[in-house]
C-alpha cells in the first residue's frame, strides 16, 4: 500500500466502521480474539494431547498441532500398524498404541482428537468424556442420529469438558468475515444457495491386507457411510446454514453410480435440494466422476452473490444494487465475464500492520489450524461453548444423515422438529 492517499485510507476506515456492516456481536458465537501475550500469560502448562485415528485427517491434525506451541502430541492411537509407522515418521518418538483405552487411562493426557472412521466416533467420544478428557471430534460427528444424540447428551452433561466438533468454518477468519457481511444484509434478500464438490477419484483405499482394506473402505460401505453429503457436504452446508441462520425443513435427494461401478452401493454422484425455513432453496451436488470446476459455494440474494472458493470469498454485485462505497477500493478478480470483489478478512488489522487490506492476509493459516487454535485456547481461557459446539455438530449430523437417506432412496424427507431434540 505504497501509493495510497490519505483520502483512500479515510474512506476505507470509514467503511470499516460503518454501523451497517458491523454485525451485532451476539450473532457471533466465538471466543474473543486472543493475542500471543495473553496466551503466554494464561497457559500455565502445555496441553498434553493424543490423536486417535491416524488416517489422512488424524495425520493432518498431528501436523497442525506442531504449529500450536501450547500443545504437545503425547500419543497416537490406531488399530492399523502401518498408520502407527506413519505416526513415527511424522512425529519421531511419539508414543503409539493400538487401543485408545491406553490414552484414556493416562492421567497426563488431558485432551483427545478423534479422527477415526465416522461410525466409530461415538464410543470413543463417550469413553473419553467419561475419562474426563477434552474432546475434539471430526465432522460429521456420527453416522447415525442416535449416536450423534448420545454424544451431544454426554457433551451437555459434562460442561467442564470442552467438546468441539471439526466444523472448521466456524473458526476461520474468512468465514467469520463473510458471516458478518451476510448478516449485515450484503446479499439483500437471500434467495438461494448452491454448493458443489467435484473431483475425479474412486474414493477407494488400498491396503496389502484384505481384511484391513474392508475396514479402510468404510466410506464405501453403505451400512455405515454417510456418503458424499456427510463426509464432504457437511463442511459446505454448515457455513451456508450458519450464514443464513436457518434450518432446513425438508430435503429431496438423488444419487447415482455413474463411473465407479465396482460393486459399491454408495453413489459416486449426488444431488440434494434443501428447503430452508423461509423457503430459500439450498442446492448441493457432488461427484467423484469429474473434476471440472472443483469445489465452491455461492450464496445469492437480491443485491449480490457471495462466492467461496478455496476458503476465500468474493462478492458479485447486481447491476441494480445500491453502491456500498468501499468496493471502489477493494481488489477485483475476473471470473470469466463476472467481476468479483475480494472480501478480505481483518482488513482493519492488516491496514494497521501496513499490509495491504485489499490483498489476502500473508499470515493466513490452514482452516484446520484455526479450528485447533480455537480448541486449544479454550483450555486456558475456558471452558466456554466452542463456536463448533455439540449443538451445532449434532444439528449438522441430523441434517446430513437424513439427506443421505433421501439420496439413497431418491425421495423427499421432512425434518421433523423432534429430530433436532438432544
Amino acid at each position, binding site marked *: 500500500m505504497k501509493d495510497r492517499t490519505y483520502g483512500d485510507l479515510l474512506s476505507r476506515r470509514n467503511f470499516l466502521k460503518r454501523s451497517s456492516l458491523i454485525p451485532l456481536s451476539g450473532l457471533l458465537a466465538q471466543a474473543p480474539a486472543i493475542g500471543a501475550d495473553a496466551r503466554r500469560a494464561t497457559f500455565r502448562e502445555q496441553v498434553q494431547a493424543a490423536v486417535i485415528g491416524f488416517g*489422512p485427517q488424524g495425520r493432518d491434525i498431528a*501436523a497442525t498441532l*506442531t*504449529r500450536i*506451541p501450547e500443545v504437545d502430541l503425547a500419543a497416537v492411537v490406531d488399530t492399523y500398524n*502401518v498408520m502407527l509407522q*506413519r505416526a513415527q*515418521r*511424522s*512425529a*519421531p518418538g511419539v508414543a503409539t498404541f493400538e487401543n485408545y483405552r491406553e490414552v484414556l487411562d493416562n492421567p497426563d493426557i488431558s485432551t483427545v482428537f478423534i479422527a477415526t472412521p465416522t461410525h466409530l466416533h461415538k464410543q470413543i467420544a463417550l469413553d473419553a468424556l467419561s475419562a474426563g478428557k477434552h474432546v475434539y471430534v471430526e465432522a460429521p460427528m456420527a453416522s447415525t442420529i442416535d449416536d450423534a444424540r448420545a454424544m451431544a447428551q454426554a457433551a451437555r452433561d459434562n460442561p467442564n469438558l470442552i467438546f468441539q466438533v471439526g466444523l472448521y468454518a466456524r473458526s476461520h477468519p474468512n468465514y467469520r468475515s463473510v458471516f458478518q457481511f451476510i448478516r449485515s444484509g450484503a446479499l439483500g434478500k437471500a434467495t438461494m444457495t448452491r454448493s458443489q464438490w467435484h473431483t475425479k*477419484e*474412486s474414493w*477407494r*483405499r*488400498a*491396503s*496389502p491386507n484384505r481384511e484391513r*482394506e474392508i475396514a479402510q473402505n468404510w466410506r464405501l460401505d453403505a451400512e455405515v457411510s454417510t456418503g458424499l453429503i456427510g463426509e464432504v457436504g457437511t463442511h459446505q452446508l454448515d457455513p451456508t446454514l450458519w450464514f443464513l441462520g436457518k434450518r432446513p425443513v425438508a430435503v429431496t435427494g438423488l444419487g447415482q453410480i455413474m463411473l465407479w461401478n*465396482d460393486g459399491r452401493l454408495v453413489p459416486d454422484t449426488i444431488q440434494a435440494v434443501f428447503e430452508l425455513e423461509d423457503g430459500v432453496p439450498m442446492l448441493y451436488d457432488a461427484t467423484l466422476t469429474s473434476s471440472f470446476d472443483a469445489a465452491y459455494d455461492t450464496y445469492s440474494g437480491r443485491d449480490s452473490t457471495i462466492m467461496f472458493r478455496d476458503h476465500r470469498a468474493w462478492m458479485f454485485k447486481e447491476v441494480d444494487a445500491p453502491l456500498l462505497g468501499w468496493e471502489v477500493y477493494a481488489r477485483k478478480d475476473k471470473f470469466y465475464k463476472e467481476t468479483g470483489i475480494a472480501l478480505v478478512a481483518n482488513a482493519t488489522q492488516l491496514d494497521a500492520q501496513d499490509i495491504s487490506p485489499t490483498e*489476502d*492476509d*500473508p*499470515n*493466513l*493459516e*490452514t482452516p484446520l*489450524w484455526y479450528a485447533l487454535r480455537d480448541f486449544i485456547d479454550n483450555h486456558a481461557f475456558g471452558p466456554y461453548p466452542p463456536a463448533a459446539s455439540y449443538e451445532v455438530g449434532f444439528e449438522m449430523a441430523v441434517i446430513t444423515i437424513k439427506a443421505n437417506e433421501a439420496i439413497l432412496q431418491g425421495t423427499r424427507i421432512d425434518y421433523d422438529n423432534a429430530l433436532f431434540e438432544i
Partner: protein
Amino acid sequence: MGTVRLARMAMACRFELVLQGEDEPWLRAAGEEALREIERLETRLSRFLPASDVSRINTHASQEAVPVEPWLLDLLKQSLYLHRCTNGAFDLTVGPLMKAWGFYGDGARVPGADELAKARLRTGMHLVELDEAHRTVRFAHEGVALDFGAIGKGYAVDEAMHVLREAGVERAFLHGGTSTMYGIGKPLDADSWNVAVVDPRSPDEPVALVAIRDEALSVSAVSGKSFEVEGTCYGHVLDPLLGKPVRGALLAATVTSSAAIADAVSTALLVHARPLAGYRSLVIRSDEKGPLPSRILHHGIPLYRTPKNGSTPFSASMLNGHITTLQQHPNLNATL
C-alpha cells in the same frame, strides 16, 4: 494382470503414474493415495500458497525462529547436505535471484547491477540456520527466501512411492512433468522401465536409453522456459554461484536411489556443465561448435547408439516406461 494409468496436475506440472498388477480397482486406489500425497506436499512446499510451510518460513524466519515439522527439518538438512555435495550448485535460497531475473512470473529480464548485487547478498545456504534441538529454522537476515523448486518435485515422487510400497504395489512408474521419475520393480513386459533421454535440439534423437528399476532418474534442461536478450539465450535455471542463468549446458540427467537427490543433483549438473564425481550422470553441453557426441559428457549412463540399418532410430515400443523425456509422447500426452 492389468495396467492402470492416473494423472494429476500438481506443482505446476503433470504427474503421471502407471501401475501394474492383478486388481485394477485396488491399483487405482493405491495410485490415488500416492497422487494425493503429492498434492498434499504441494500445499506444504509451495511458495505461492500463503498457508504453506515455505510461505510461513519466508514470511517470518528473518524475524524469529520458525518451528517446522520433523519431515521438513529432514528435508532442509538433506538440502544442506546436497548443497555441500554439489559444491554449492544446488541451493534452496535462489528465490531472490529468481525474482531479480523475473522468473517468478513478472516477465523474465536481465536485472540491473545493483539489483543483482542485492539479490546475491540474500542468496546462500549459509544464511539458513537450522536448530535441530528445537526443530526451528531461521534466516541470517531480511530478504532470504526458500524455493524448493529444484528438489520439491523429487521429494514428492519419493513420498508417493513410499505410499505405493506401503500399499504393497510391486510394479509402478511415476514421473512429474517428464523430468523427475521413479520406477518400482519392473513392468510386465520387460526387465526395467526404459526412458529415453533426448537432445533438446533434436528431440527425435535419443542420446541415452536409461533402464530404471527401483531407481530414480531426473533430467534438467534449460529449454522450455528461456528468454533471449540481444542474441543471448538465458535459461530458467540459475547458477547460484554466479547469480546468472546457467549457460554451459543444455541438459543434465542423473540416476540415483532417490528422486529428491536426483532432482537436486541434475540441477547442479546443469550449473557445473559436467558430471559430478559419485553420480551416474550425463550432461549435454551447449557449445555451438562440434558434433553432438563431443558435447556429451557422461559417467555411468551409456549412450544410445543409432542402429546402422536405416530403420527408425528408436520407437515408442522400446519405451515401456512410456515416456521420452523432453518430448511429447503419443500414448501419454506427456508434455513439459
